[in-house]
């Protein structure tokens, strides 16, 4: 890999599990290097002491390994040839196809000037009522699924990706099991969507630190299609908890003082740098957009852990899946799920009664939850409680279940029908202007 002008160093002074240190000069911060062919990146310079983070891990590296500095930070070659291809974390093809030709762009580039952004305003319809009605997605939004590892988040995400009308779907897999990787590959290929897919994959079989490159790779590709090609791009990142775990490994090896849950103190900024790449460009800039749907796996549903907690403060809402034992289906949890941008489209791109119907339904569903608690505690239920419970069952089946696939107007009509079936006008607390029209 070395060319005539590159100096080769052969004296490594220190090796830890993830880093190597050596004496070198003229080295730039963030610069890439190879150590016996293994890719590494400069993470610390102090005088002529340079510390390198080795992505594959330092196993097998001898103290006399050949170290060559490449003079560039990690980069990706971007062009239309990316479409339909599968890559590893370094952006090298893993599908047996030819190498990509194109412009070389450093990954993890600068952020968009906030005044050059446009307020997201385009609805992304998924057909899933638990999302479209209660937690509407908007182009340029960033939103994760908060899910326990046993929940079908990858299936739901694949469904959302295929139903959403987008030009490109970019999948960034971090610590994904080989089985899930094949699930995505087969699902996309069976749907005939492969030409819209670009995939950067780090599976559980690959070194953990490598996955730190995956989101930036995926988003650099996304920026190419959104900025240069003015396309609507959907980026799927799964699983961001694995990404954070790798951050923690590196920071630990670098002797940084950990903050909450052994995560590095910079976790918020590290995650924000990724998620904030979601953007809607204005017409003047071509009108492209990047929407990010991610997965943050939880441990036993604990959202106070540093990873989901910091994520929640960065993303524009979060989606929870839950198995509703009353109807035996996986539903999008209406209590904890939230799309912060929904009011930008609810009632504007959808029917005017959208917000009020949504809120009323959730309130009544919450009354049903209270009634259920009462029942479990052995108390008598009132007539209202019973009606709430009956409503909740129908509502979960017809609206919240992830197997529902209808448009929002129909979702609203179905909900109104349920209101009328179980409640009196004054029990739903909806503005008169809407009840006049829809309470028939």
């Amino acid at each position, binding site marked *: 890999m070395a060319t005539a002008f590159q100096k080769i160093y052969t004296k490594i002074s220190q090796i830890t599990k993830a880093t190597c240190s050596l004496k070198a*000069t*003229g*080295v*730039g*911060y*963030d*610069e890439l290097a190879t150590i016996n062919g293994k890719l590494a990146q400069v*993470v610390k*310079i102090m*005088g*002529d002491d340079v510390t390198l983070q080795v992505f594959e891990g330092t196993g097998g590296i001898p103290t006399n390994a050949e170290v060559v500095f490449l003079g560039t*930070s990690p980069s990706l070659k971007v062009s239309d040839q990316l479409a339909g291809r599968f890559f590893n974390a370094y952006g090298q093809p893993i599908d047996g196809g030819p190498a990509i030709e194109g412009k070389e762009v*450093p990954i993890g580039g*600068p*952020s*968009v*000037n*906030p*005044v*050059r*952004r446009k*307020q*997201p305003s385009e609805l992304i319809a998924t057909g899933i009522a638990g999302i479209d009605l209660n937690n509407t997605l908007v182009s*340029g939004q960033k939103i994760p699924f908060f899910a326990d590892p046993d929940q079908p988040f990858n299936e739901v995400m694949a469904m959302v990706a295929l139903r959403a009308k987008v030009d490109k779907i970019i999948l960034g897999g971090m610590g994904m099991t080989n089985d899930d990787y094949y699930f995505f590959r087969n699902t996309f290929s069976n749907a005939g969507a492969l030409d819209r897919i670009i995939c950067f994959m780090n599976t559980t079989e690959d070194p953990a630190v490598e996955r730190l490159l995956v989101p930036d790779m995926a988003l650099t590709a996304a920026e190419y299609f959104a*900025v240069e090609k003015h396309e609507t791009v959907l980026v799927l990142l799964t699983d961001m908890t694995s990404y954070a775990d790798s951050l923690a490994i590196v920071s630990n090896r670098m002797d*940084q*003082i*950990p*903050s*909450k849950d052994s995560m590095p*103190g*910079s976790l*918020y*900024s590290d995650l*924000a740098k990724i998620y*904030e790449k979601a*953007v809607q*460009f204005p017409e003047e800039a071509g009108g492209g957009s990047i929407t990010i749907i991610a997965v943050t796996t939880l441990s036993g549903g604990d959202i*106070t852990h540093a990873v989901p*907690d*910091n994520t*929640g*403060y*960065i993303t*524009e*809402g979060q989606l929870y899946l839950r198995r509703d034992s009353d109807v035996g289906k996986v539903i999008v949890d209406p*209590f*904890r799920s939230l799309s*912060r941008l929904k*009011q930008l489209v609810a009632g504007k791109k959808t029917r005017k009664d959208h*917000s009020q119907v949504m*809120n009323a339904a959730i*309130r009544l569903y919450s009354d049903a939850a209270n009634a259920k608690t*009462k029942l479990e*505690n052995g*108390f*008598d239920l*009132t007539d209202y409680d019973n009606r709430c419970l009956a409503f909740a069952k129908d509502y979960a089946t017809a609206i919240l279940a992830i197997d529902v696939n209808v448009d929002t107007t129909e979702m609203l009509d179905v909900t109104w029908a349920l209101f009328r079936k179980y409640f009196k006008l*004054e029990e739903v*607390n909806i503005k008169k202007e809407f009840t006049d029209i829809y309470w028939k």
Partner: protein
Amino acid sequence: MTKGTVRGVIANMVTLRVDGPVRQGEICYIETGGDKLMSEVIKVVGQDVYVQVFESTRGLKVGATAEFTGHMLEVQLAPGMLSKNFDGLQNDLDKMEGVFLRRGQYTDPLDRERLWDFEPIAKVGDKVEASAWLGKVEENSQPLKIMAPFQMQGTATVKSIAKAGQYRVEDTIATLTLEDGTDLDVNMIQHWPVKFAMTNYREKPRPFKLLETGVRTIDTFNPIVEGGTGFIPGPFGTGKTVLQHAISKQAEADIVIIAACGERANEVVEIFTEFPELVDPHTGRKLMERTIIIANTSNMPVAAREASVYTAMTMAEYYRAMGLRVLLMADSTSRWAQALREMSNRMEELPGPDAFPMDLSALISNFYGRAGYVYLNNGQTGSITFLGTVSPAGGNLKEPVTESTKKVARCFYGLEQERADKKRYPAVNPIDSYSKYLEYPEFAAYIKEHINETWIPKVLDLKTRMQRGKEIAEQINILGDDGVPVDYHVTFWKSEVIDYVILQQDAFDEVDAVTPLSRQEEILNLVTEICQREFHFDNFLEVTDFFRKLINLCKQWNYSTYKSEQYENFKKQIKEFIK
């Protein structure tokens, strides 16, 4: 000027070897690949100076040169800042080229060519001190003052002052003769180091004037005052930002400064998009005209995040010195604290609680201390009302940022997950939240004079009822509906009326979003009437049924345009219903 050479780089902390004197907090520029990276001195060890770089250090090499400026991080203050969008270092974001932020791109915060209609206030021969009003210009119909230099020492004499007419910010508008006999030319621009508080006022009394926000849970239940301080902690998804935006839209202030500190870019975009369209309910002018945005969103450089809140506060102090009422909002102070933590960590300082730096508490209290209601040296008044949000890790209020803030902020608006889950917005917990100002006799006197003397007792009564309602709800949960007397249900449902009618407010409904004080008074009176009335029911089902209907009527009343026929109609219906 002192020069330095780069010796080490760890993320955005760079070590420089310097050849001359440097001061703590001094600004320097490191040159790399044609870019100049702005940096701030944070530690000096012998010849080695540690600086935090406000930009990405990618590609920076040992041996790169740095040039020191001799001054600390400072802002330029002059007419022309209103309705602008700045980053945390006061670069004008609109002047930047391209879609992406480019490293090392710094833009002028001021417009040097624009002409201002200047009118003198001071006369030749007047004795003036620092910050004295020399003249005035108007910007977006705000009367701005041109002041004697903030850093001027002692008393100076006005030697000459420009005649009324059009001037640029850099034109000399006055010449002052200083105490030592030298002359000083004064233009419209002030410089101020952001980390230092301005103390150009005579006295900072306890604040007492109600600051109307149109948000009922604040104005009625836990009022904030002009020059007061408050904070809004809450887990994510509980509506911090919506509440903050509502306040910044509706509050009765002359100038609103919003520091988006390490938060989402789309939230800033929301302000860019909506404020130019929205009308200030108090003046009828566009909201954007009175607003300044300091946008240092979460993906922008971390070190500049810390600077952004100080930049915003310094601008607020500038307008306060003109006798204006400034509302400063910072979202979120936790991100600022995290920026401090990242840097403290890189400097390998011994960590305090949760790895935050030990002086976090002191920094927070100094910062809140810069707000306040003041009597200026000329007897006029000005104020900075400061509201910060706090994003406690895991929603747990027992963490260093929340605890340090609680010690200094006088209003606490605790957002609660449980309320948010039930969609009871704004999710301000009615029982734990407080406003210390309700206890101020100065405030009571003001309310007595401007509203009436029954207001505060009524508010306190409702607060007690909320508390009682909560206790009863817990008892009903344990004992069951039939397990408690019917009276208990009545008390509980009365607290629900307070909750639904006063506390809950639909920020996305055109009418309900903002409630003028006079309307809040009507609501308070009616709700008090409902609460004080004795109702008789045979069983709890009747209670539930009655109050559900009543609440529905009250909600419809809340949704009706103030003083409209529909409004009066619903009010009448409610009155009849409770007879």
